[in-house]
């Protein structure tokens, strides 16, 4: 780890140089309403908004695109060829700690067992520049989920210490881009201390609501509460729309579908994000649906976040970004509401 200092104009110049060298995906305003932010390709450093609270979608879309071709096939002889993957280096800038934690989790599930080549190639191609938050999403609770800080996965980390940023390079890739494109100077002991002061406030900043549980308590709380009335109560209002799945930085389930070209002789097989809240998620041919009721699907998501992925890879799969709470129309998706009730034993 190496700490440097970059002032605001130099940071802009750094981003512009990056844009000249690689595709750069960064946080910018969405719809221009000043309230919504999105990770998208930048064409100018001026578009970058490192003061955002939360983005609508998480940056997972750059590693696991919403729709991606797996293979090309010819129908006549059933020959299939894997999709050629363009894994050219790209820069992802503006990742908050909780989203970095989520990416690290996805890395583990995609590496675990049978490694997912497409995901891992894209992941290896990414140069991630993270940033400590200065604002917070309205339903965020990452301050209570232990995800206000992250120790791995990123290449460069930025911390706004007022008018200038502390730059941490964490990998060789990170050192390369910074030394090649950024005009920095060494960080003083005072700069390092200021960074720690900013970071000391993050835990408090990242909790907008009254969280009564600790993340490490979730597996135990869930294990004993499969039949709790809360599942049915909340699911009464569920539209089975899957919005909570769609915006979640740790959801990665997918469907696989074939598309035949108009010539009918060849086509592509692609995968597309799927969501366990959708009614057809667990249905098999013949009509048997293994999670037929909304209550079962609603419960499945919250068990997956707090228990199932913990059992699989050792992670609590809720990072506290609050996106599901924001996206849910009837406002039943907020994990805090549910886990608080389980914690209080109501």
């Amino acid at each position: 780890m190496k700490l440097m200092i970059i002032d605001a104009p130099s940071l802009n110049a750094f981003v512009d140089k990056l844009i000249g060298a690689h595709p750069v995906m960064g946080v910018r305003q969405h719809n221009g309403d000043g309230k919504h932010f999105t990770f998208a390709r930048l064409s100018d450093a001026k578009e970058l908004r490192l003061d955002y609270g939360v983005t609508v979608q998480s940056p997972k879309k750059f590693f696991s695109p919403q729709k991606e071709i797996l293979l090309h096939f010819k129908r006549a002889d059933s020959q299939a060829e894997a999709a050629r993957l363009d894994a050219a280096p790209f820069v992802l800038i503006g990742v908050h700690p909780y989203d970095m934690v989520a990416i690290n989790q996805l890395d583990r599930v995609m590496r675990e067992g049978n490694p997912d080549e497409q995901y891992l190639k894209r992941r290896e191609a990414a140069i991630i520049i993270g940033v400590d938050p200065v604002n917070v999403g309205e339903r965020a609770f990452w301050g209570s989920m232990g995800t206000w800080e992250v120790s791995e996965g990123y290449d460069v980390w930025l911390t706004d210490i007022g008018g200038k940023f502390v730059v941490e390079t964490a990998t060789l890739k990170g050192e390369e881009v910074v030394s090649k494109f950024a005009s920095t100077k060494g960080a003083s002991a005072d700069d390092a201390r200021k960074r720690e002061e900013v970071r000391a406030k993050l835990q408090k900043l990242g909790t907008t609501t009254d969280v009564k549980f600790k993340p490490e308590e979730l597996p135990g709380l869930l294990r004993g509460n499969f039949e709790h009335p809360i599942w049915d109560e909340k699911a009464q209002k569920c539209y089975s729309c899957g919005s909570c799945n769609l915006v979640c930085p740790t959801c990665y389930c997918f469907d696989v579908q074939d598309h035949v070209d108009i010539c009918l002789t060849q086509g592509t097989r692609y995968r597309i994000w799927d969501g366990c809240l959708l009614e057809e998620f667990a249905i098999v041919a013949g009509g048997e649906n293994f999670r037929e009721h909304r209550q079962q699907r609603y419960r499945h998501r919250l068990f997956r976040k707090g228990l199932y992925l913990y059992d699989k890879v050792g992670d609590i799969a809720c990072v506290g970004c609050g996106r599901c709470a924001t996206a849910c129309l009837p406002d039943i998706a907020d994990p805090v509401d549910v886990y608080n009730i389980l914690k209080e034993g109501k």
Partner: protein
Amino acid sequence: MTFHHAENMYVPVPATIKNVVQLTPIENVFTIALDNGKPLGHKPGQFVEISVFGIGEAPISVTSSPSRSNGTFELGIRKVGDVTGAMHGLNAGAKIGIRGPFGTSFPVDEMKGKDVCVVAGGCGLFPARSVINEVVDNRKDYNRVIILYGTRSPGDRLFVEELADWHIREEIEFYETVDRAEATEENSLACWSGNVGVITTLFPKVELDPAKTYPIVVGPPIMYKFVLKELEKKNIPHEQIFMSLERRMKCGVGKCGHCQINGLYSCQSGPVFRYSDIRHLKEAL
């Protein structure tokens, strides 16, 4: 990695349908050879993902036993969805894609010297047949071999010639039942003199030694809990009961999430489960 796939795990290898035999109006058995000339190398109870390109992929249990593989393998397929429907439109010579074999298998080694009791309902005989024939072909390695098989009607019985053989062979204790024996419009094959009733009606007819019996249960989702009650009555230890559970499976490699039974991915931890391992799982049975 021992799976059959091309450059990556989502890409199937080409295979050829060598033979198709109609078993019932909605069930065919397909004999398949991989075009690379290699044997599938499956264990009894494992499944493959079949591709009919342009339609999609579906998980199908292998019905042939490794003991009879001969460079080919058999898939018994009920016409029930898009991919299985498309398969029924294919004849010998047609090309399909294959990934796998995937998943866990029946404990053919652990059962050696023990009593094997297969309980199969409907097209559950397809996966069950892979272990039945494996055991029958290595008969001296096992103690008793008991088969309980139930179908909806006499016309739904699969592999009727093999069933007749199992009835004749003295070293196989074979019991059959049909839910209803009367002739219907779809089913004119109603000359049935055997047991009538659901599969649980066969249990009073058979003595099972709790110390030695390994039940293997495969059937429609509704069947399991009733069969388990019968096995409970006979004091069979949960550690000795094995079952194959059907779920929606898209990837077969533990990623896509569709086959989850609570936290378990049934394409990886299953489809064959030891009852004592899944008893506590609320979504299993």
